[in-house]
């Protein structure tokens, strides 16, 4: 054993003995301030980003939103989620689709989708009253969040139904494609 190794061994032995005698170990204090600063900045940034979107689009499970080269931002409106399985409005599954991805014929009167019309008309009344209360003009915008393989006939039915419920403006929600 070299003198250095012997010295280290003695020190370890001393420390062990001191521990047995009940000496309190000196604890290290973790500096939290810098970590707090970093986390506060991240949370503020995320909150700002979250709050700046006028409408949050959350596609339903299995929905593949079509992509486009369009770059215009989404304006405030009421989203309708239309997939090949169902039409969802205000977190409610309004209409089921058949196996061909068409609107269930029982819910369809010509181009009008009955259950969707009822909810849209109700929402239009509510939104109009709110706009009146604020002294603003009601824009009546529908944001159609479709699916890549959604049939044109279904799209037309949904647009027709929204039009009958007094919604005047339509926008297709897309995923921005990088060129």
């Amino acid at each position, binding site marked *: 054993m070299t003198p250095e190794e012997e010295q280290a061994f003695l020190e370890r032995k001393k420390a062990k003995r001191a521990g047995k005698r009940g000496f309190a170990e000196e604890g290290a204090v973790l500096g*939290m301030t810098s*970590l*707090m600063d970093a*986390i*506060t900045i*991240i*949370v503020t940034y*995320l*909150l700002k*980003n*979250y709050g700046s*979107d006028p409408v*949050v*689009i959350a596609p339903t499970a299995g929905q593949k*939103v*079509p*992509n*486009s*080269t*369009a*770059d*215009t*931002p*989404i*304006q405030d409106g009421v989203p309708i989620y239309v997939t090949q399985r169902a039409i969802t409005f205000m977190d409610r599954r309004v209409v089921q689709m058949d196996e061909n991805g068409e609107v269930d014929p029982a819910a369809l009167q010509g*181009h009008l989708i009955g259950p969707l019309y009822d909810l849209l008309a109700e929402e239009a009344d509510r939104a109009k009253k709110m706009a009146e209360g604020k002294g603003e003009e009601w824009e009546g915008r529908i*944001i159609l969040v*479709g*699916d*890549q*393989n*959604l*049939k*044109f*006939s279904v*799209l*037309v039915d949904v*647009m*027709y139904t929204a*039009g009958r419920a007094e919604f*005047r*403006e*339509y*926008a*297709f*929600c*897309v*995923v*921005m494609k990088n*060129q």
Partner: protein
Amino acid sequence: MGRKKFEEEVVEANLLPVMNIMLLMIPALLLAMEIARMAAIAVSPPKFAATADSKEEDKKEKPLNLKVFIMEDGYRVSASGQQAGADAGKSADSNSPTIALAKPGTPLDDHDRYDYASLEAKAKEYKALFPHETVVTVSAENSIPMQSLLRTMDALRGTDCKLMGAMTANEEVPAECLFWQAIVEAGAG
């Protein structure tokens, strides 16, 4: 008489609960945020078509009235009631599309089956003739998927068209934008 000196005890704030909340907020906010960047394409219902046409009439300019019908076997393009590429003396030729498929024989869910480049070239031809026209009526057969419709609208708008400035900062619509006001119509073929 000596005064007793009290030493102030420094109490450090317990930041651990705050840290826990902050750390929980980060994944929650990240989940709530959009992962993909979303955009919107404004479309007009057919009732606005008449308004757009009357404006053009006011200017004493013959309206283009560009219509694109997406069929399973290609595009039928017509302007001023005349289908492009129709037989002489006929306003429309229902047997053959104006622009055939780029990938014939492919299923409908293959969104590259249409010849978007040729459609854009056609739109540029019309834009050169009618530089003030911005409206196009797009229609499709019932089975056409939404992605094909949107890519058609992209081609008609022009792939280099950026409308962000015009929509948000009231800037002028860039010259690269062709027919950027789309009217979606049912059965307009």
